């Protein structure tokens, strides 16, 4: 059974059919790409998957559990984490705390214990620090732990966003244009990071990307969207050589 399945997913904004009858099926451990021209509905699908929008019709299944109509928080708890097209970090907080917010639901002590600094506060905070540092080390960000997030270089901010998403311990990771605004070297490094995350955490990753080098380099399967509908779907090389895809998106 696939880890993520969308069945006949659709949503309209007023008269605009933003997403129509989209079926995507992502297997566990897969690196899956979602590509298409601007305005094709890629980010809208991410927003549907994470409960930012509610679909007009269709269903979303994660590991067989129906997530249709669930709120963002519940979907996060069910195991979908995401990054954003325009980076959304907690910019005024230290890098370490950004990850610790991601860990929020996995470690617990009450507000009261926190204010009085009871023993549990110290114990849990210590565990959280250790776990957060571990994640930062995975992404090579440990030396920036005390920096304000907004002071990180662009590429590291992207990585931090992934680290924060991974802190929620997801089953499925959604990356929205992770390579946007990166130079070729940074993109190369990002590809390594994405592969590494998949291998190390046995993560299933669904990503939106315009950088064809990255898509061709790491994605195993692709769905191409155009005007909210699936234009092509299948193995990466097949899809990229599909004449429809070339006319609609890639160009000759």
């Amino acid at each position: 059974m696939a880890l993520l399945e969308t069945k006949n997913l659709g949503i309209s904004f007023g008269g605009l059919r933003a997403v129509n009858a989209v079926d995507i099926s992502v297997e566990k451990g897969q690196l899956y790409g979602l590509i298409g021209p601007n305005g094709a509905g890629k980010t809208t699908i991410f927003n549907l998957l994470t409960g930012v929008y509610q679909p007009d019709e269709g269903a979303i299944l994660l590991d067989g559990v129906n997530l249709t109509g669930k709120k963002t928080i519940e979907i996060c708890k069910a195991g979908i984490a995401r990054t954003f097209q325009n980076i959304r970090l907690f910019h005024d907080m230290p890098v370490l705390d950004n990850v610790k917010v991601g860990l929020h639901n996995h470690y617990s002590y009450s507000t009261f214990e926190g204010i009085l600094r009871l023993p549990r506060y110290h114990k849990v905070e210590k565990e959280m620090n250790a776990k957060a540092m571990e994640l930062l080390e995975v992404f090579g960000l440990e030396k920036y732990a005390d920096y304000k997030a907004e002071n990180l270089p662009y590429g590291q901010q992207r990585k931090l966003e992934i680290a924060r998403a991974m802190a929620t311990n997801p089953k499925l990771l959604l990356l929205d244009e992770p390579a946007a605004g990166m130079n070729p070297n940074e993109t190369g490094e990002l590809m390594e990071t994405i592969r590494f995350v998949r291998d190390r955490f046995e993560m299933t990753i669904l990503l939106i990307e315009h950088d064809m080098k990255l898509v061709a380099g790491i994605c195993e399967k692709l769905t191409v969207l155009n005007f909210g509908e699936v234009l092509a779907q299948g193995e990466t090389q097949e899809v990229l050589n599909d004449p429809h895809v070339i006319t609609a998106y890639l160009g000759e």
Partner: protein
Amino acid sequence: MVSVGSERTGESVCDGKRRQICGNRKNVYERQRMSEAGQRKGMEMEMKVNKSKLSKTTKNDMITYGMVILTYIVVQLLVSTGHVSSLIQGLLVPFCTYVIVAVALNLTVGILGELSLGHAGFMCVGAFASAVFSLAFKEALPGGLRFFLALLIGAASAALVGFLVGIPVLRLRGDYLAIVTLAFGEIIKNIINALYLGVDSSGVHFSMKDALSLHMEEDGLMLIKGAQGVTGTPNDSNFTVGVILILVTLFIVLNFIHSRTGRAVMSIRDNRIAAESVGINVTKYKLIAFTVSASLAGVAGVLYAHNLSTLNALPKNFGYNMSIMILVFVVLGGIGNIRGSIVAAVLLTLLPEVLRGLSDYRMLIYSIVLIVMMIFNWSPNAVFFRKRLQQKLLPGRKAEKEAV
């Protein structure tokens, strides 16, 4: 660092004959490099400053506590040696009140990131609830215990009102939230102004009309007399109590900020959508922060009420003028900067009194000082100038302030 590698590649590709061809691309790199270099510079500076953030925050908190305690000792010494005029002595408790409420509001404005103009209202609730309690149990309980219970009642009632107000209000954002809290603050004040409350042998009487409709027995005790407020509240506040309450408030707020809850609240402030995406319950944490903030404003109200023999809900002390005044403390001291709020609250309360001799020009000078301080503290050029000056004077302690 990654960026270093990428720059070099950029350079080598664009070398020699190909330079012109990749002119455009080179420009892009150039720009990127420049911005990255700038960023790196800033980061290197910060790296030196924040070597160990964890101990740094604790150290910073200690400095804040220390500052309050030191001020207390100095003031006590000055008072005992007779260097403080009776006018200023009378202001010591109000100082503490304003400091507490400024710190409380900073929790809403700086940490939660929402503008509240209703904190005078929460102060008002705390003041009246505790004053009524203290008046009713004036004879029955010893002073210390009575004041302690009054504190709890004041804080709890303000928290309750804060919670109830917060439920509808926190659905709004920014300017809208500010205006609705302003309205709630006024409503609270006006309700209390119309409230009549009395107690006699047959129980508690309550009316929103007038004193007569309470139908009290002869020997009954009037607790709230409408616009005339509460009279005869025991005078339990003093400077020492005020300073202790400041320390308690600081303890609560600073520990709150550095706890799991505080992080969740700040994450909502920094990016609500991202906070939701990592599973933070936005409504819950907004309400927690707002309620804690309101209850601390209530504590300030308790202190205020027990410093006066007659407590009235006037526009002057609990109206929106007061709310805006508190907001000025917070903004001037630095949004999110707890220590700054304390300093600003004391300075701005002291200033009109110091300027009293100038009679007619007093408020004019006060306003000018306010403008100048605001520019000096917050104009980007002034901030830059201050940093430069600091580096020159104290080369070892670069930008220490930033870490607050």
